[in-house]
């Protein structure tokens, strides 16, 4: 499996990271080095092995479906780069 410039562009976009055009070839090379390393996993016989879901066997705990928190609008917005009138503000998303 080899990653080309177009795949690198696609992955960068999926990850929502802007990568300048002149960096894409280099990035593809870095991906290929890492994927080459990971490729060793293909040697392992994994027939009949279940993929690990939880490293510690435990039943996911449940709790009552009740409100435990809330009414902290100021705290929630305190770290926002742009908050207005009690909301997070972002560029226009609908035309």
């Amino acid at each position: 499996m080899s990653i080309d410039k177009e795949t690198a562009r696609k992955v960068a976009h999926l990850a929502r990271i802007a990568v300048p055009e002149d960096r894409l070839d280099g990035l593809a090379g870095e991906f290929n080095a890492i994927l080459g390393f990971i490729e060793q996993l293909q040697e392992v016989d994994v027939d009949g092995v279940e993929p690990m879901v939880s490293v510690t066997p435990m039943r996911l705990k449940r709790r009552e479906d009740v409100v435990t928190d809330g009414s902290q609008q100021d705290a929630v917005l305190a770290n926002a780069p742009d908050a207005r009138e009690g909301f997070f503000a972002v560029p226009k998303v609908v035309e």
Partner: protein
Amino acid sequence: MTLTDLTIAEARDALRAGETTALALTEAHLEAVEAAGALNAFVHHTPEIARDQAKHADERIRRGDAPNMCGIPIGVKDLFCTKGVASQAGSKILDGFKPEYESTITDKLFTSGAVMLGKLNMDEFAMGSSNETSTYGNAVNPWRAGNSDAALTPGGSSGGSAAAVAARLCLGALGTDTGGSIRQPAAFTGITGIKPTYGRCSRWGIVAFASSLDQAGPMTRSVRDAAIFLEAMAGHDPKDSTSAELAVPDFEAMLTGDIRGQVIGIPKEYRMDDMPEEIDQLWQKGIDMLRDAGAEIRDISLPHTKYALPAYYVIAPAEASSNLARYDGVRFGHRAKLSQGDGITEMYEKTRAEGFGDEVQRRVMVGTYVLSAGFYDAYYNRARKVRALIKKDFEDVFADGIDAILTPATPSSAFELGANFSPIEMYLNDVFTVTVNLAGLPGIAVPTGQDRRGLPMGLQLIGKPWEEGALLNVASCLEERAGFVARPEKWW
């Protein structure tokens, strides 16, 4: 009595005996921190909080209501959210972020009276083995090689924590460990660091890297201190659904120094062809020390060891790409300046390109790739199957009567900052530690010797799940026989 040279146990006893005060301990350490700018270990200083906490601690000690950590000055890795105090995970993307809440672990520690001196340097989002990916610049190892004045790495990702403890800037520090980030820096700086069993400590309020692997643990100057510190951190937390509902034992009381009849496994797969002779000799010395303590030594096999790093470099980036999706420039931290006409997608893409460093970008994108349609089975699911096999390797040897496993902690001693390794070469630092995270086991690095240039080297002990107490006891036997008393000569 030099206050900064005390262990946590000694400081606790001195406080209770009225031989010193929390405020005096705190002032001594604040002074040491101020004088150690060259180490770049502390990146956010909190002297007002420290003095306030110390005064409260002194009141409690006077009332006779002092838990073990009461009045003990510590440093906190920047990965922990601390209320009202910058918590950036070593990343530019969290510039200016001051949490409105306290992580469960720091809350527990502060409730028990511990004193926070400040936040400690680390690799960005805990991704690195040399502290060189930090937005704050490199943390520097207080140790130097022989007569050289070249700056060495304290290791990573908990590099600031390791440097601070080794340089006596704090009595202990919080670290976190996803693939070796407590144990490798501990080994590089001649201190003790334990990664507990997955689920022993709450992850709530710790900035997430790879949630199925991340665990917090203490970094200290003795095994006893690690036992005391860990006990104050551990325990069930309803806010972390993976934290275990198990009672926390008195780890310190389990340090009996008696390991007669215990069986210590020596895994043949950890003997690497290109391993430096000094590491191999250290390992052999460690075997002799544990035999001397009355343990039985047995050769064992952990056949899937070789595949641990490749599996890790699928699973950790996959989880990181999901966890780091939250850094979108909307709710906290950095947002890129936008150009006319930029929409929300450009805001995400520019913010993340500016805010994440190279290594974080690389791992997020690798994670995105291995999770993408068409590759999920070939990479991610296969890695999770290999992870199951790695865990089974350990279960098999424990079922065969092995009590603990002894290995080297790292494939080398500390290397120079700026050594310019490729990503894969850097990843190999975790070759002995990463299996432990994949299997969810407790592991501890203990300083055991020095190489010919005088740099510290450590050995790793791996224990059974939830048996940190027994593991610490084996570590104390190693510590006692190694008699590691060397300390870095002050140059900073």
